[in-house]
């Protein structure tokens, strides 16, 4: 076998691993998918059923009485926390990238950007620890009551501020975790913009900031969108930090921004052991369906980002 074929064979393990995983999840979750139908995505009722009663047969599947698997609250929690995270991360990320690319002297630039990028390297569980130990007390005692009092007229921002475990806390911590992804890519893109566009703008009398805002940023728009989508993908899959600070809500939607939530990823971790006590095995398959749904959403989001970034690679003139 020649070298080419050898590397192709061994290298395709990467692809095989992914395909095997998704296929396995699909096959394993199939009974649950058939049993749940579309209600899985539209209903707010996750119930393992009466674990101490005898199984009954519904629609050809053996399940426990009162068992029902509807994860609308998980989808809501996942999407809402990610939405908050990305809507905060993009402005902060763009601002930081601009300052890093244009506002810091080149000597300092790599050190300061290293400092910011280290934010992305910190493990999720350490973020969870920090959130659990200092951020939640700080937010619930100082920030949230203030917010509910003075900003309470805005819908979702008023009402009971709860214990600090909830949607906004998750959103804030997730923001920190994903901002470096946007900042790093955007900063690299801004720095690598050619001199001619810059010089043209300055020649027309634009200030430094105006150059960035009106000339450079539009050029790197696609990189911004691509990296934002990648960051979204990361936020969607975050597990440990969310598990420790989200409040682990089950079967209800958050009524305001401080209310507890659950995300699909954190739900799998917290419910797997309970699901394993279901003698019919349907609960575990329903969790596999959650994992499959999460996997597919991530694949979709990441695929989109790759297409956009790839298109930018091929399209950019790179003056």
């Amino acid at each position, binding site marked *: 076998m*020649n070298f080419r074929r050898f590397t192709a064979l061994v290298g395709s393990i990467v692809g095989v691993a992914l395909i095997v995983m998704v296929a396995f999840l699909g096959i394993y979750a199939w009974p649950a998918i058939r049993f749940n139908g579309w209600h899985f995505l539209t209903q707010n009722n996750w119930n393992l059923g009466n674990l101490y009663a005898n199984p009954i047969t519904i629609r050809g599947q053996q399940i426990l009485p009162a068992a029902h698997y509807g994860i609308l609250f998980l989808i809501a929690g996942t999407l809402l926390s990610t939405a908050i995270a990305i809507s905060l991360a993009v402005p902060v990320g763009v601002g930081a990238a601009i300052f890093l690319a244009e506002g810091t002297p080149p000597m300092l630039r790599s050190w300061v950007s290293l400092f910011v990028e280290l934010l992305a*390297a910190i493990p999720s569980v350490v973020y969870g620890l920090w959130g659990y130990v200092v951020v939640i007390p700080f937010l619930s005692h100082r920030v949230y009551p203030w917010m509910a009092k003075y900003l309470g007229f805005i819908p979702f921002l008023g009402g009971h501020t709860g214990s600090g475990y909830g949607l906004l806390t998750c959103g804030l911590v997730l923001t920190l975790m994903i901002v470096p992804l946007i900042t790093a890519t955007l900063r690299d893109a801004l720095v690598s913009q050619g001199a001619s566009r810059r010089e043209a703008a300055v020649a027309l009398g634009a200030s430094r900031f105006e150059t960035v805002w009106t000339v450079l940023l539009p050029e790197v728009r696609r990189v911004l969108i691509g990296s934002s989508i990648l960051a979204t993908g990361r936020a969607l899959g975050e597990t440990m930090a969310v598990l420790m600070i989200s409040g682990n809500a089950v079967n209800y939607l958050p009524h305001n921004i401080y209310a507890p939530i659950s995300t699909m*990823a954190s739900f799998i*971790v917290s419910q797997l052991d309970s699901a394993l006590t279901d003698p019919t095995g349907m609960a575990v398959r329903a969790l596999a369906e959650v994992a499959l749904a999460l996997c597919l959403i991530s694949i979709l989001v990441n695929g989109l980002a790759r297409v956009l970034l790839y298109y930018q690679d091929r399209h950019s003139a790179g003056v």
Partner: protein
Amino acid sequence: MATTATEICAPDRRARRGSLLRRRLFDLVGWGSSALALLLLGGAMLWILGVVFLRGLSALSPTILTHVTEGYGGGLLNAIEGTAVLALGGVLLAAVPGLAAGIYLAEFDAGRLAPFIRFLADVLVGVPSIVIGYFGYVTLVVDLGWKFSVAAGSLALAIISLPYICRTTEMALRQVPRALRESAYALGAGDARVVLGICLPAALPGILTGILLALAISVGETAPLLYTAGWSNYLWTGHLTNEPIGYLTYAIWAFITEPFSSAHALAYAAALLVTLFVLIISILSRTILEGWRRRSPWERPAL
């Protein structure tokens, strides 16, 4: 003398002054908010590192580094050893397939297989690690009967690290100039010699960065290990299956929620060790990359 666009276009002095004021304000707001953004990030970073380092350092003691965990207290020796075993195991398992994939994508990118593998690798990066852990639990731990084990944990970590090693290897190899390859082929070298003898050594810093990245990711993972490696209060006895193993991130997650200060000390110390390790690796790989960029006489890497 009118020299700037504003001055040329504005009809009179007052209008010129007004729009100049507006532009200055725009500049101020713009720089101000971007500086604020950077400060927010820097501040948050300092806050996290501050909490982890201050509490971690005060919790660190010789006992923690030399004893194994006993219930809610004791030390972290078993967890430190476990993290090392799992992370090295994961990287070792992922190194060969990852390198092979990276080599294939960079050197032999003709036809449809290479873009397909590249796409799958990119997709695999985005799969949440808990999904990989769940998959590992159902197939390796239960179905194959490995139970909680080093094998299951390392395999899960390997699947997570694979795409990173593949991508960084590919990018590093692409930086090697074509001329080098062509001259090697011209001298009669075969594929294997060109890649392994010429290109790999030239791209070594970039490849090393990828391996270090995989190591850092493996050290920091928790969710997949919860369901593949389990937890053990004892040092590893060398069994690859049927025996669980401890790891630092478990200590962080499980012990911080206990209402006992000895447990908290373990959690903080573990957080400190993990964060320190990850930071050192990140700085190390950045230094290697920068050194390589500065020393190489070739074109500046694009991305």
